[in-house]
């Protein structure tokens, strides 16, 4: 018997040994390496998958249609994080050796861990409308970009919307805030506290522990009791769908239920018509009626090169993935212009990002006319604090119901500066910006 055991054991040991060489992957020389941190597994796969597909498919489309960016193929490489910070870091270490030109962590937790590394490893981080709000300040965080809007912008935009114009109309009202009880959901808390005291409305907080994502009846009982005039939600993954169902159970009026920009169709289909009137923020178009998305359909999806199931193609989160990849490509293109090189480095792409200037014309060139509002980044402003609009669930799909609402910068900006300063102070020896600025603005 135990002879066999030894055999088994040595066998397993060999298996381990075999995998050893895999630890040092080689980098391809003739292409630009663009890693994508995605999660198609775990409790958050529901939100992660369409985003991953959108990001992946747009870049693949560029490779197939234009042979990459500026004639250089993009080496697109997904790494599965499962929305888990440790796995995210593993991915980061795995891709670092292949000199990536940009990193999209797609998790606030991972972003927070990577922010300090970015400057050291000379790799820009694009945390598109998530991550650390304060990282919008380019002079403190030269390597971090979180366009087009921060969570604080989004929060103030939601408040402006429900107030019907300006926040001071909320005086005496009660706002419920149900949130995913982690870095992401806690991000807006200071702003809420601030604004509540400034404008004299009451906040009620309903944290949802990650472990209880799908077990929210207690929170919704609280909401039934407190009867807030509006409920704002920062949810992610399975939390969104559950919240919507519980809201329906609790008989909470859907038209008073507004969410940040993360819910997708998948979160609402199971609720169907009952969820009519549920609103979320968004800043880009939904659907496939854009030349670029048609190209994706033609070259990638129909060619079976995409993992996206037909019904998920060109949904809210899919298109958000596309938007994210569009920024990557744009940054690389700028980098090539600025540096005159074809094979750009992270350093160049950082400059490229600071020079992003997407006006209507440029969107048209990209085959995304009217896909999103124009915006530009600068060395000081890595976010642009763009306006976002409200879209409403009509029982089958999201429809845009408002014009873009601009953030309440007057109140947000000071907090932002403060937070950025605090961060730099807390992290002793935080480097002052040395990176040169070459944007015309």
């Amino acid at each position, binding site marked *: 018997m135990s002879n066999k055991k030894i055999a088994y054991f040595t066998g397993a040991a060999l298996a381990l040994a075999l995998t050893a060489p895999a630890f040092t992957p080689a980098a391809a020389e003739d292409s630009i390496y663009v890693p994508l941190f995605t999660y*198609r*597994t*775990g*409790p958050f*796969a*529901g939100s992660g*998958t369409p985003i991953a597909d959108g990001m992946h498919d747009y870049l693949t489309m560029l490779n197939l249609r234009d042979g990459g960016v500026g004639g250089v193929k993009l080496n697109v490489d997904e790494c599965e994080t499962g929305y888990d910070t440790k796995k995210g870091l593993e991915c980061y270490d795995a891709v670092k050796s292949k000199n990536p030109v940009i990193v999209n962590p797609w998790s606030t937790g991972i972003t927070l861990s990577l922010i300090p590394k970015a400057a050291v490893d000379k790799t820009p981080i694009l945390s598109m409308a998530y991550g650390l709000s304060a990282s919008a300040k380019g002079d403190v965080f030269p390597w971090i970009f979180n366009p087009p809007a921060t969570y604080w912008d989004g929060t103030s935009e939601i408040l402006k919307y429900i107030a019907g114009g300006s926040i001071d109309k909320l005086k005496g009202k009660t706002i419920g805030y149900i949130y995913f*009880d982690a870095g992401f959901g806690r991000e807006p808390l200071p702003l809420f506290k601030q604004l509540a005291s400034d404008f004299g409305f009451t906040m009620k*907080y*309903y*944290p*949802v*522990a*990650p*472990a*209880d*994502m*799908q*077990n929210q*009846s*207690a*929170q919704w*009982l*609280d909401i*039934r*009791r407190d009867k807030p005039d509006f409920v704002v939600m920062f949810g992610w*993954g*399975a939390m969104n*769908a*559950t919240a919507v*169902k519980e809201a329906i*159970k609790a*008989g909470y009026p859907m038209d008073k239920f507004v969410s940040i920009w993360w819910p997708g169709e*998948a979160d609402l*289909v*199971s609720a169907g018509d009952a969820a009519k009137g549920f609103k979320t923020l968004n800043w880009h178009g939904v659907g496939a009626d854009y030349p670029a998305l048609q190209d994706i359909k033609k070259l990638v999806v129909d060619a079976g090169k995409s993992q996206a199931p037909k019904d998920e193609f060109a949904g809210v989160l899919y298109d958000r993935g596309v938007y994210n990849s569009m920024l990557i490509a744009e940054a690389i293109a700028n980098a090539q212009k600025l540096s005159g090189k074809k094979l750009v480095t992270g350093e160049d792409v950082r400059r490229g990002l600071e020079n992003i200037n997407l006006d209507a014309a440029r969107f048209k060139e990209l085959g995304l006319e009217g896909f999103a509002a124009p915006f530009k980044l600068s060395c000081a402003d890595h976010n642009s604090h763009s306006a976002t609009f409200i879209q409403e669930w009509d029982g089958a799909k999201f429809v845009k119901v408002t014009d873009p609402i601009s953030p309440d910068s007057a109140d947000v900006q000071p907090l932002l500066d403060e937070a950025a300063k605090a961060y730099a102070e807390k992290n002793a020896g935080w480097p002052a910006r040395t990176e040169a600025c070459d944007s015309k603005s």
Partner: protein
Amino acid sequence: MSLLYQIFIDPFAQMIASPDLLVQTIWEGFVGGVLYALIALGFVLIFKASGVFNFAQGIMMVFAALTLVGFHEKGAPAFVALVLTIGVMYLLALGVERVILRPLVNQPEISLFMATFGLTYLLIGGGELVFGGNPKSMIASELYLPSGSIDLKMLGGTVSLQKLDIAAAVIALVMVVGLGLFFQNTRIGRALRAVADDHQAALSVGVSLNQIWVIVWFAAGVVALATGIMWGARSDVSFALQIVALKALPVLVLGGLTSIPGAIVGGLIIGVGEKLGEFYWGHIFGGGIESWLAYMIAMAFLLFRPQGLFGERIIERV
């Protein structure tokens, strides 16, 4: 002082002030408890018969539900899918018995416990591999599960009972009674109890352990399926549910690892207890205490009855 007021007076004042909410809370807790109890029931079945602390019970629930929805997506009519899923659960039971229990029989229980962890990984990986990782909505209407709610005007307010939750409670009841009768009145059931009491003795009177194991694991699988359907219909079917399933542990321990009524009573105590706690006391501590309250309740009970409410008494002899 005000804290004391918040803790000892205010909640009860609220209960009296709006009894409808109190009833609603208890109902919510009751339904949650029923579902915990069903998961715990699966644990107990297996623990009684094979002495295995089956950690995979929670995952079996998700796996069963996923399989059901998966088959339906692949085009099988709801009830065909249901039958197929039950078949899968049977195969799973067979596999577990062949691959895990048989080789590991008479090994330290911790190893068997560990093996069920392995099973958990296997089911998560396999399940996502086959059915994909993103959450699916349960085919509730196809299975003729009621939807909507009954709103009772009472106690100066409304108490709304989800038809689905009522169905969950009924199904749970049916299963418990069914299992009870099965173990009381069938040959296999008696054999199982014999095994539970003493493996050797059972063997000597010619009960086939392996057969028994397959049966209990299958039974646990069916219970898991029922639980999965119910919970899947309340939220969505995804592996995030496995975390909810952990709540079955305090239930189980509270009820006593070997007692079916224990699992039920424990489930209700935990379910109602945590909801009341969260609803009336949670906000004092900033909310979210539900995530640990259940365990604290169970621990408090254990300090007085280390063997759980209905567990066999542990007598220390030398």
